[in-house]
């Protein structure tokens, strides 16, 4: 028994090292005063961060990525709310198969989505733009949003809705006064998941980017130049800190929402 526990501890330890050691290397090399990314470390410097500040192309890429991620998050969550509401509340013909097809992009290789969207957009005579990327991203993010929101809507006691209606409120107001506040934690989780997926998505963005690259596409382009590597480490460090803070903030709001309403913990895989 003891021996088994021992092995298990080692397993967890090794697993965590594999998971997080590479990420920890990012800040280490970001502050390393050497243009070659390797041990032993030289002195401490913040010059790689300074390099980022003056890089116009990078700023444009970050702007593109944020714009795409925010728009994608809003639209996929909106679609997610509609689909989750419909699938949990109403019975309609072929509901299961319709939901199945909507969820399919979750497991479909992104390269297939990227290539097929590219062909369709070109054939229809549209220019590639940030909107073509947004289109692709909504396609892959919506299933995740539906998955999160379905559980939020499913946990909703249907008699709450009936009670509101019974007390004289209209269906429309019931939706805004009762349903939306109660699935809010799920909506926040959905926005966040879609935002993060879109922000670091590469394949679709690479295929559908016209002349405007997103951040992952820009980073990939820079990897050809070894001299740029330390500043990419700095960039990675910033992204790491930002995404961890974003998760913490979102989780704080989610927990606060749950405390306030006392409802079941929905969308809680964050």
């Amino acid at each position: 028994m003891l021996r088994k526990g021992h092995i298990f501890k080692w397993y967890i330890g090794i697993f965590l090292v594999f998971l997080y050691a590479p990420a920890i290397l990012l800040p280490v090399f970001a502050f390393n005063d050497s243009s070659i990314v390797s041990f032993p470390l030289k002195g401490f410097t913040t010059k790689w961060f300074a390099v980022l500040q003056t890089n116009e192309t990078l700023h444009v890429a970050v702007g593109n990525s944020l714009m795409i991620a925010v728009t994608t998050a809003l639209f996929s969550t909106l679609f997610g709310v509609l689909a989750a509401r419909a699938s949990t509340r109403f019975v309609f013909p072929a509901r299961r198969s319709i939901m199945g097809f909507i969820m399919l992009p979750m497991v479909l290789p992104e390269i297939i989505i990227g290539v097929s969207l590219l062909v369709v957009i070109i054939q229809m005579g549209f220019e590639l733009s940030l909107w073509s990327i947004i289109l692709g991203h909504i396609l892959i993010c919506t299933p995740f949003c539906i998955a999160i929101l379905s559980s939020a809507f499913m946990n909703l006691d249907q008699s709450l809705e009936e009670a509101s209606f019974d007390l004289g409120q209209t269906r429309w107001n019931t939706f805004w006064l009762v349903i939306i506040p109660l699935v809010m934690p799920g909506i926040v989780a959905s926005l966040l998941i879609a935002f993060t997926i879109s922000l670091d998505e590469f394949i679709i963005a690479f295929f559908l980017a016209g002349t405007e690259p997103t951040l992952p596409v820009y980073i990939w382009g820079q990897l050809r130049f070894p001299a740029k590597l330390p500043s990419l480490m700095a960039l990675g460090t910033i992204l790491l800190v930002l995404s961890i803070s974003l998760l913490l903030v979102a989780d704080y709001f989610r927990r606060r929402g749950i405390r306030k309403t006392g409802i079941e913990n929905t969308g809680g895989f964050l």
Partner: protein
Amino acid sequence: MTQPIIQLSGLDKFYGNFQALSQVDLDIKTGEFFSLLGPSGCGKTTLLRSIAGFETPSAGSLYIDGQSMDGVPANKRPTNMVFQSYAIFPHMSVAENVAYGLKARKLPKAEIKTRVTDAIAMVGLQGFGERASHGLSGGQRQRVALARALVLKPRVLLLDEPLSALDKKLREQMQSELRQLQRAVGITFVLVTHDQEEALTMSDRIAVMFDGTIAQVATPQDLYGQPCSRLVANFIGMMNFLDAKILSTSGETVDVDVQSFGKLTLPLGQATGGLEGCDAVGVRPEMLTILTGSQTAEREIEAVVSEVFYYGDMTYYDVRLPFKEESVTITMRNTAGRSILGVGEKARVGWSASSLLLLK
């Protein structure tokens, strides 16, 4: 004679091929405490939800306060409901919950405030207004649900098994509080329950339902004393059944052969559900007595005790009657000096023809 507040006639409800309600006719009087009683799946909740407007009947008519409810949605009906789960809005305080319906009616703020305060006081939750509703106990949630519905002064308050989630002690307390509250506000209450004791203690009248139909509508006393069928008799309290055969009828009486008790002549009134199809007599356990010493009864029969259940204040005896070996249950109050019989002992069972009911 005032017009009934709720009039149902020929109400049918189908879910696909399943018939949840079939030809329900029912009048509920203004101001009464009415209960729909039946086992689960008997259609009582469907009936309540049809009155509330959450279910659309497949056929038949429904009038509330003289108005046809055809096509009237739940939010436009003069009814309010207390849900089984109470359906308290978890993201609102107690006062916000109670004010919800008043806000929907767009009443002036000052009026909302006084009515909410009054309603919260009425259900005994003074000082709880600002409390978050999710921290409340079951009994408190129930009171909030009551206040939230009653603050709107509905013509009818519908209650869907409101006490089933409470523990026994609280349930008994809420039963008497609900009764008092109903008398105080004078609003018609329609209660759905599967608990016969709850229905008997609280209601003015009870409708017993089986399989989507109403078997009997009566006051609690009539329902217990004169059930119209074995099904109803068995559902309301305990009843012993003995095989019986109708021999002949003449005017106001009927001759019956109850094998265990012998041939009897009973008044027609004791066939509470009509004579047709009657094949048993029923007798309540407390209508039979085990005689001791020099006690005598109108009629007596020798029996053997086969089982004894001691409940403190009461003892339940299962005794086997001679001839057909039919078994009956007898409940005896454990008064001073009365000894408890043991299994296998002989017992003199006293009974009277007037306590027998002829049932189908």
